[in-house]
């Protein structure tokens, strides 16, 4: 518990730094006013709009007033939608979560058995096939896989809907699209981690005890092999929350990634700031979760 509180406190400077970087980047990439007004607008009109948005103030003052609002939970309003930026972001979160979790489940279902099997049957034809498949899975671009899945499973065989969000059926193809790449990476990692663990002395001990091979592999070895895998899972989950723009675009999935890119293009500052802030929080949370899982998996790790 003490560890949790300490970790929370440590995240504050990280979050502050993120707000500063995003704040500056979005301001150096261009002026939102030029996108909001027609090209024929006069300089006076532009200035007055800037003034009404508070963009005429010096940057430090703008930043601190942004921070001041942020503390009260006010991320400002979207220029484009004229609504509260935070609620725009939060609106997109369920869709993003849904896809992130589903993709992770797909990745786990694929990678855990394949990774273990290919380690146990190392250098066999099966192992070669799986390791080769993993390279392919990693190299395959998401948009291409997504389009192929749509072509075969939605257009030709009409099993799943083409795009959009709503039923469980809508979730299947985007989750497979995103899950495949992650599964490929995790399969390789589980394989190499298992290979290392299977060479350990305690596996020999487990064999000498007369345990069944399935218990040795799935319990004694896998529990140890999982520790490095959890790191990658945490990082991947964070990535899934942060942005899966291509897949979201292919499947017209109303997630956070789409909103973020739209907002960057429109220089919708408040939304960009709110979205990155929320994503940053989830990245930090998933890493914290990974730390907690480590502790559960490996009793040697203690946080003080």
């Amino acid at each position, binding site marked *: 518990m003490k560890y949790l509180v300490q970790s929370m406190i440590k995240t504050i400077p990280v979050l502050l730094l993120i707000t500063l970087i995003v704040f500056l980047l979005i301001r150096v990439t261009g002026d939102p006013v030029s996108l909001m007004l027609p090209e024929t607008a006069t300089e006076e009109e532009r200035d007055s709009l800037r003034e009404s948005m508070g963009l005429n103030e010096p940057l430090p003052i703008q930043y601190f007033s942004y921070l001041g609002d942020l503390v009260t939970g006010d991320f400002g309003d979207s220029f484009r939608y004229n609504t509260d930026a935070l609620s725009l972001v939060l609106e997109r979160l369920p869709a993003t979560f849904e896809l992130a979790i589903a993709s992770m489940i797909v990745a786990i279902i694929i990678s855990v058995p394949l990774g273990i099997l290919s380690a146990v049957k190392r250098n066999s034809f099966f192992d070669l096939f799986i390791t080769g498949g993993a390279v392919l899975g990693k190299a395959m671009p998401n948009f291409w896989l997504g389009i192929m899945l749509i072509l075969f499973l939605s257009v030709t065989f009409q099993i799943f809907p083409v795009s959009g969000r709503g039923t469980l059926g809508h979730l299947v193809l985007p989750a497979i699209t995103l899950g495949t790449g992650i599964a490929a990476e995790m399969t390789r990692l589980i394989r190499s981690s298992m290979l290392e663990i299977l060479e*350990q*002395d*305690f596996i*020999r001990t487990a064999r*000498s*005890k*007369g*345990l*069944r091979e399935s218990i040795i592999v799935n319990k004694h070895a896998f529990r140890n092999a999982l520790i490095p895998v959890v790191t990658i899972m945490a990082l991947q989950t964070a990535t899934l929350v942060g942005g899966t723009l291509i897949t979201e675009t292919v499947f017209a999935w109303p997630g956070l990634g789409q909103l973020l890119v739209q907002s960057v293009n429109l220089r919708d500052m408040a939304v960009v700031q709110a979205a990155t802030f929320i994503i940053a929080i989830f990245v930090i949370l998933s890493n914290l979760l990974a730390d907690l899982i480590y502790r559960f998996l*490996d009793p040697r790790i203690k946080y003080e």
Partner: protein
Amino acid sequence: MSNELLKVDDLKVRFKTDEGYVSTVNGVSFSVEQGETLAIVGESGSGKSVTSLALMGILPANGEIYEGAITFEDKDLRSLSKKEYRKMRGDDIAMIFQEPMTALNPVFTIGYQLRETLIVHNNMNKEQAHKKGIEMLETVGIPDSDRVMGRFPHQLSGGMRQRVMIAMALSCNPKLLIADEPTTALDVTIQAQILTLLRNLKKNSNTSIIIITHDLGVVAELADRVVVMYAGEVVEVAPIQELFDNPRHPYTRGLISSIPKIHDVVDELYSIEGTVPNPSNMPTGCKFHPRCPLADIECTKVHPELEYISEKHAKRCIKVKG
């Protein structure tokens, strides 16, 4: 012999490597009687550990027995199915290893690892196994055994972990215990405690022990009979007293001379010149000849047979007579 528990006959083990098969155990034969403690002695690379793994049926994936027979209580172990062999491991034949620091699984409690064997072999439920586990820890001299059951391996010292390993190995009352260098990785004081533990086991039960070691001190403490191995072969077999009093093979003599003696003041300790040959590049003739003080041209050509010079004493050397 009616009370023979284990008989190893002409055992040959090879490993598949990138350069083809490499044979590390080349026709090893010995037997263990009920209640007997047999020491297998040799330098690293002599094939003694591989022999023990072969007996347990837990050779690494690239290793295999390609010739010979292992008979345990009239059962031919090589003809057992995987399942039958597995059921014997940890039950009839148990093993303890050299490295107590790494031989226990770091992510499971001591209790879990102790119970596991009991549940698998003795059909116990969790509570019964837990009780028996505590009892076993007490037997091997672990204080506060109730609490140790809930500990993880990293919370125990090396000596404690080796005791846990012994408790685990003994929990199903094995007929044969194979101890592979059980004291090598431990401090001297702890070594003595572990040896005492093994000696008590020997005294108080009918368990046969095979102790594998390079340490003749350990041999003298425990063994009834000694098998000396060199380069994957048995070079001498003798009862303990006979071996120390009248070693026949030059290698055995070298090993015994290498033991420092407290009353002799010497400038330099004796050691056998050279190292154990690489299994993929064995010398012709007698495998020991490049290091042997007695070797002549004949030794480079003739591979000596293991020859019995008395009922219980055998040596593999053509130079030493009788």
